[in-house]
């Protein structure tokens, strides 16, 4: 990519970012111009299927699907490791064997995790 093309691309990107940022601003201005403004207490109540909202309580919220939330932490790190391996193998094809072994182990362990997840209690 030569310098002129790169410069033109950067200019396009800047213009596009400005135009994209203007779109929400235009929507707000359009709404201000077109919409009525008649505040009322009832309008500002939260939706609760036609009932009078009874407010928030200090009860504990049951956490469901807890194992899934925990496994996300593990998989997020693994996904990063896999991604870095892919980058490494592009630069250094000699490391291909290591990556193939890593992916084989990950495939087998993810199948094991998938089979185990179903049997774990999902609610705390």
């Amino acid at each position: 990519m030569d310098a002129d093309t790169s410069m033109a691309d950067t200019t396009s990107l800047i213009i596009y970012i400005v135009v994209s940022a203007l779109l929400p601003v235009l929507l707000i201005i359009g709404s201000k111009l077109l919409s009525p403004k008649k505040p009322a207490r009832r309008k500002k109540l939260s939706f609760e299927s036609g009932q009078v909202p009874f407010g928030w309580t200090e009860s504990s919220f049951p956490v469901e699907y807890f194992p899934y939330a925990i496994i996300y932490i593990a998989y997020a790190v693994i996904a990063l490791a896999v991604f870095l391996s892919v980058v490494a193998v592009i630069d250094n094809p000699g490391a291909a064997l290591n990556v193939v072994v890593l992916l084989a182990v990950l495939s087998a362990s993810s199948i094991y995790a998938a089979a185990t997840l179903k049997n774990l209690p999902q609610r705390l």
Partner: protein
Amino acid sequence: MVVALPPPLQELIRFLASESFVKAAVFPGAAFVAVLGILSVWYERKLLARIMLRPGPLHVGKYGGWLQVIADAVKFLSKEFIIPTRAKKKLFVTMPLTALFLSALLFAFLPFSEYWVIYRSEIGVLLVFVLIALTPIPLIIAGWASGSKYSFVGMLRFAFQIFAYEVPLFIALAGVILAAKSFDIVEIVNAQYALPFIVTQFIGFLVFFIAAVSEAERIPFDLPTAEQELVEGWMVEYGGVGFLGIQLAMYTKLDALLFLTVNLYLGGWHGPAIPGVPETILHPFWVFVKFLILLTIVFMFRGVYTRITIRKILDLGWRYLIPLGFINLFLVSLTIYLPTLLA
């Protein structure tokens, strides 16, 4: 007699006709994204109507009621934007519009040919992924900031769903990068010149496509906004311009994800040559045709599938798509590097 325009006006005309401005403001930039959003909504309505044996939009606009979408946009703009008492005002107002901005930004890095791209980056696919990962965050905050129990439950479901499907999306993407040996989307498309990746990585395509449909929160993965039980879930408190912003953001993101799928798996702009049609028109044409096929499939899901439960959504993401993603990656690494290893 020719009248010379004043120099500032000449400069302005030169700028408006420049390649940079045309790409950013017309195609594949802002005007195209806006028209695409309108077209997508209209197409969905007409297609669903055909599936349900009814005409769909008909009266507003001469040809297939196409002006109905514009009328709806004006309707949303002319409705009062009510901010509930319990809502966090600043977040409630700004988050849908931030989501719209981030979704629109996706198109900055999506190529429609080697020429028609707003910004070609050597790490384009990474930038797109970062934006895909960022777009749900303002929407999750929007649900939380609404101060409603319904929004809160919808937001929790949305967060669980997004977490479950981002990992497989990322793993499937790694397979494409591994096969193309590049992060540049243009080079990824060119690597599919002979054979699109949908053939060599069919499992990866399935994982990516299902995860993309879930990311866009389309039926059967629309539980966070479930109309019949959570009455629009995390967006229940939004009306007027806020609801319009969310809808535009969701449709723009869906379109961007499908264009990305076309580039990553369906060979992008590669297609049969049509005599007499120059490549500058033909390449975007093929991208658009492939996009329309995917869009039709996604919209047909809404017409033929029922909503699935959160347990099944999470099961599909964590217990099926992630292992399938890893298996796909393993197969890709084998097919690409086995000859090297054997040699």
